[in-house]
């Protein structure tokens, strides 16, 4: 198994863990998860702007702005609440 797949497996487990908090109606865990959302947003924006974008431009060249534009992204996401 590749390293990326192993990490993805752990990340995928996060989806199920979050759902467990809801199905078990664990109020305290939900409060903690809410803060994970905020912390994750700060971390994610920093990674994307400082690490991913420069790397993406060097790999994809002129089509990078198109691929990472708002024209494509909205189709891949839904409001996360």
């Amino acid at each position, binding site marked *: 198994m590749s390293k*990326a797949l192993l990490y993805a497996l752990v990340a995928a487990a*996060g989806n*199920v863990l979050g*759902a467990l908090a809801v199905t078990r109606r664990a109020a305290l865990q939900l409060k903690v998860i*809410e803060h994970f959302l905020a912390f994750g*947003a700060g971390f994610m924006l920093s*990674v994307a702007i400082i690490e991913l974008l420069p790397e993406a431009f060097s790999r994809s060249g002129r089509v990078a702005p198109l691929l990472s534009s708002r024209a494509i992204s909205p189709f891949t*996401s*839904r409001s*996360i609440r």
Partner: protein
Amino acid sequence: MAGTSALIGLLLHTFFDGVAIASAFLVRPELGLMVFIAIFLHKLPEGVTISSIMMAGAERERGGRAAALLGLATLAGVIMTDHVGFLVQHGLAISAGVAIYVAASNLVPELQGKHGWTMPAAFFAGALVFFGTKTLVDGLS
């Protein structure tokens, strides 16, 4: 149905989570690790979202099953990125766009709607921890 359309949207999004992890690991392992942390952190709230939506007026198992599907979509993203040439080259650009869109348009408005100082503090802590980790990783390599 609202639940189904939310599930399809989130499935596409979690697929690109997988693409992001795989293509970041292709660039260098340190970047892969950073992207993994970023994605893992928002996967917990994502699981909360989908199970809450799917459980509205339905049985509990549906919430769990939908979350498991999201996890599977991420794994599919990793496997596809290893095999599809287009994603090998351009996966990073797409996932950078998706990450910025999700964080800035979905996550940040969500925390702005909450009262108190702990949520904004957690946001800035996230950015700070990133800089800390980056400094540490760059120093080691």
